[in-house]
């Protein structure tokens, strides 16, 4: 496959999975600029890994793994990208559903209080991944995933009751 065809196939893949990437970056970014920068970092890392992808796992697992690894471990703000391409999302643009906006803000606030690795696990739970998939992506055993998730949920419950 020549570079142009590879790029075309890759862009199709990213377009099909853009929401997954957004949700991972949403959980880790401190603000909108950070989110744009992080999104671009993830796309660049996906592009670097794409020629090696042979379909050994599901595309979504592959994307979650690279996105989470980028957000948790391999990201440095702003110096990396001279020009950041802003993504097109506005989550404040639905004033008629104010209760939903405030719920989303509360969710974001609570997730931001979690540690880096905990956010990865809660994100995968919110995405309705099986324990097996969560274990594969995080590197924990399925039992440990269950135990950790219960603790994180307890933590979130306590946060919301304050």
């Amino acid at each position: 496959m020549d570079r142009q065809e590879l790029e075309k196939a890759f862009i199709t893949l990213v377009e099909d999975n853009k929401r997954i990437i957004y949700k991972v970056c949403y959980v880790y970014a401190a603000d909108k600029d950070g989110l744009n920068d992080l999104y671009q970092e993830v796309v660049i890392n996906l592009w670097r890994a794409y020629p090696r992808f042979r379909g050994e796992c599901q595309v979504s697992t592959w994307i979650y793994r690279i996105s989470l690894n980028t957000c948790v471990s391999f990201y440095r703000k702003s110096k990396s990208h001279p020009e950041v391409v802003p993504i097109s999302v506005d989550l404040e643009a639905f004033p008629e559903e104010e209760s939903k906006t405030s719920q989303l803000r509360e969710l974001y606030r609570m997730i931001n209080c979690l540690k880096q690795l905990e956010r990865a696990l809660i994100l995968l739970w919110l995405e309705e991944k099986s324990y097996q998939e969560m274990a594969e992506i995080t590197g924990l055993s399925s039992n440990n995933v269950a135990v950790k998730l219960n603790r994180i949920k307890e933590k979130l419950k306590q946060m919301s009751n304050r």
Partner: protein
Amino acid sequence: MELEELKASWNVLNEELKKQTVLNREMAMRMLRNKGESALSSLMLWEGFGVGVAVVLALSGILVYLLTHWLGQLLLGEFVVLLILAWQLYKYCFLKNIRLEELSVCDAFLRINKYKKMLIGEIFSTPFILVPWFFVLDWGQEFVWGKWIFMIIACLICVPPLYMYYWRRIAKLRQSLEELKEFEAE
């Protein structure tokens, strides 16, 4: 907010994202065309630069010998440069072998923290390598107080602030490693 409400909020996000563009082909193409490097490849570039500098120093030492046939301390200098070259190559290969698509989140977290440990170790051990090296290079030369006073003052001025700056990074690194230990514990 109950956990079911949490999930409901997440579904709100999902539904909103379906209504919005997020990313189109043109934006994705621009991201690829930008002359930006990922954080990982930036680190590799930096370590690769270090390899290049070490190679140039090693070759310079050989050139000096060929031109002057002066061996003496040059041999020791070359030995130190070769050690630096080996260390730089090790770090470069360490980073090159990090494949984000193959590592689990915990493994990737461990690797980057291991790399940070290496960098901090490097910073802290540099004065302990440079000072004896300076001493050995000066061996056999006429003892000049000024040189030694300058070296001691330079160490006193540069080393404590450097160590203080990196102390915070050590604390952060320790926190990250504890987080990982806690996360992986059953």
